[in-house]
């Protein structure tokens, strides 16, 4: 990391990591509504994963609901037919997401920009339609989780701990990744693909790493979410609304910042609780807000804060070293 000139990072990792630990402990110990906290943690993890892809490599995906759906279906199949307990079965969800992500990459690797965004949407839609046709996984009726695989008395707490663990691992992992050379390479790829390639960065390799990481996170988060619901169907698990939620959170919070998805998640859930009675109006509001934020403040709320103050809660920026 040190020694070769301009790679000093402008801030230590320890305060931010300590802060994450404190927040996680507070969430774990405070008497919060664990059902809501679980949902927030999971959607935050998905948003942070998607942000790694979009904000740091410039690949705008409209198809990450594919991994949410896949992760949940794989979990159900492994638990119901394999007799595996739910928590270890989540590893299968992550692996399946990575495997399908690789296949998707093989199909989409030459598509860039808008072609990638909509190409992956077509893939996600195809998966939804396939699962709706596939009799073995209950076609459009979906599957119910085998009730004997869970312990009803601790179940609500178990899924909460899983969600907290995933959110924690995601935040710490992405933070650590961005502080390594990889982070610098990813940002270079986002800002100028050709330029990055010309200084020797393996563009496609870096994009693939980010893509598969985001796929694994979304797959695991989807698995935990649907584990908590005890029932999964293609219309819900592969719903584009997942993607819209993620997009709203990242865009409003600040795309390409580690703080953005945290703020975005808090805003999203705050508004959702506020508009609880409003139904469709909330969706209309969500779409309009994302569009307006992109128009007037494309770097989102945290982007504005950062531009004004230069403050980074999670320092990943490199400073030029004095000779």
């Amino acid at each position: 990391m040190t020694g070769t000139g301009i790679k000093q990072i402008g801030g230590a990792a320890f305060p931010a990591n300590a802060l994450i630990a404190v927040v996680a402990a507070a969430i774990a110990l405070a008497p919060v509504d664990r059902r809501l906290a679980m949902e927030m943690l999971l959607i935050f993890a998905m948003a942070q994963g998607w942000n790694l892809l979009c904000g740091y490599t410039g690949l705008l995906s409209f198809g990450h609901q594919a991994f949410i759906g896949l992760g949940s279906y794989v979990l159900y199949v492994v638990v119901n037919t394999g007799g595996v307990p739910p928590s270890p079965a989540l590893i299968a969800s992550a692996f399946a997401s990575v495997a399908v992500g690789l296949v998707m990459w093989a199909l989409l690797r030459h598509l860039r920009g808008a072609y990638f965004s909509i190409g992956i949407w077509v893939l996600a839609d195809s998966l939804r339609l396939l699962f709706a046709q596939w009799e073995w996984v209950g076609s459009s009726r979906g599957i119910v989780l085998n009730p004997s695989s869970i312990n009803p008395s601790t179940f609500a707490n178990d899924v909460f701990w899983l969600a907290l663990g995933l959110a924690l691992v995601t935040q710490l992992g992405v933070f650590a990744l961005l502080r390594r050379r990889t982070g610098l390479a990813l940002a270079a790829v986002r800002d100028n693909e050709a330029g990055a390639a010309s200084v020797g960065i393996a563009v496609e390799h870096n994009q693939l790493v980010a893509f598969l990481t985001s796929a694994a996170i979304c797959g695991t988060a989807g698995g935990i979410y649907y584990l908590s619901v005890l029932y999964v169907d293609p219309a819900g698990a592969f719903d584009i609304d997942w993607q819209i939620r993620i997009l709203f959170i990242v865009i409003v919070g600040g795309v390409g910042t580690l703080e953005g998805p945290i703020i975005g998640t808090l805003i999203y859930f705050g508004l959702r609780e506020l508009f609880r009675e409003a139904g469709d109006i909330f969706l209309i509001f969500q779409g309009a807000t994302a569009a307006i934020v992109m128009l007037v403040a494309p770097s989102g709320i945290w982007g504005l804060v950062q531009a004004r103050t230069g403050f980074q809660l999670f320092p990943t920026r490199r400073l030029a070293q004095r000779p």
Partner: protein
Amino acid sequence: MSYVEAVLNGLMVGGLYGLFGLGLALAFGIMRIVNVAHGEFVVLAAYFGMALFTMTPLPLPAVIVCVAAAAFVLGWLLQATVLNRVLGPNPIPAMVITIGLAIVVRNVLVKIFGADIHTINIGPLQEMGLQFFGMAIGVVPLTIFAIALVLFVGMHMLLHHTMIGRAFRAAADDFEILETLGFNRRRVYAAAMGVAVMLSAVAGLLLAMRSSFTPFSGVERLLIAFEVVIIGGLGSLRGCFFAGLFLGVVQVVGLKVVPNSRPLFGHLAFFVVLLLRQAGLSPLLAWRRK
């Protein structure tokens, strides 16, 4: 319905798919903007046409003209007031703005018309059919196909034989040169988006006369348009037309083989084409043209 009939029906619906693709390709080719709300505009046109047709005494051709004019204005305004602000090499802002718009349009439609399935019933004409070789071909699908064909030919004339059409093509190639010739780039873009939305709106209205729609049909329409653009190649009118026909046939025949498969077979055909390109087999695909 025999397979031959399915193929014929697919061809006829495919003409409209070609128009969906053409609208998307026009905006993408000229402004480098992917309008994610494309599908929602298609569905919006269907609802607007339905409202006009049932609530006013206007005859059908007048309704089509009204919808086309309204769509042109909508496209123009969208580009002039919003999308012209986010021009540039980064495609993300325009896509995020238009997906936001898509969500708004979709849910406003749900709010006004409900989430139920609708069709436009144009009266006794709907039932009429022509018989030949023992097959029945509806008058309505045939007319719709003819209109699609006319629109394609019309677009070709517009792009190649009018000042604004030449400006469109020039803007697609190099907007800086265009500006040195005294054109206002933003106006050209606004006109192009107007035409793009108009084409898709007319196609959407025509499609609504032969198949049902809900406020949620937009995504399906957008993905079809996108597949047409990828299969047909950007910047080729003929490519869009034939890709539309191809997807139409695949989808209708697919629906006959597996009912309820929705647009699955269209998606699969799209992947096959993508794979063939990846495997370096595109020379095979292009072989016919030599």
